[in-house]
């Protein structure tokens, strides 16, 4: 299986989260980025559309 690419993407995302925990000040965590997106109407719209698509893709298809 061509799983190495997925591992690289997972490591990149994981390293970003680790950096945010280690550096503390400045570097945003994933939760802070999501919180920032939820603060705007357009951000909430994108999140809701993505959430509905995810549910349909996983549970209805």
């Amino acid at each position, binding site marked *: 299986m061509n799983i190495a690419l*997925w591992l690289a*993407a997972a490591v990149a995302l994981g390293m970003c989260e680790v950096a945010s925990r280690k550096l503390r000040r400045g570097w*945003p965590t994933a939760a802070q980025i999501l919180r920032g997106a939820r603060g705007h109407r357009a951000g909430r719209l994108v999140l*809701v559309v993505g959430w*509905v698509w995810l*549910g349909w893709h996983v549970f209805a*298809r």
Partner: protein
Amino acid sequence: MVTSALVVALAVCGWFVVAMPPFGVESSAATFSVAAAMLAASAVLTHRSSPAFDLRVREPNLGQPLVPALDRAPTRAPACVPGETIGDTSLRLRGTITWLLAVLLALAVELWELFHAPRSSYPTLSSLANEVLGPGHRIARAAAFMCWGACGLIVASRPGRRS
């Protein structure tokens, strides 16, 4: 209390929804119905927690207008986090860009795998998830459905004011 009841209702719904055959009208209708119910519940919960809905009397109203004064200048959020230095702001910008690049990398991998075959050699995220959330794994699928529905309560609501 209300949120807990909603999560329990989601678990019950999920148990039956995930047993429906995929690629069917029933499963699509059930999923979209639950999504609509969660969005409505999120709107109601947000409205209930807003200050305008707070009916408790905190102090006697002695001649003060019931509607907040509109002539006051609206309070604006500070341009930066209090106590943040230029170095912190630069690090925040670099961190946000790095997050964006990491997400774009995951998206590129998904598209690369999607347009290559066979699927066993080029798995997409959904084909990987199918190993644990496929139709044969009812308990895991119902738990995932419950988590997905609970996320709907969060993503549709405006974040609360917190320091």
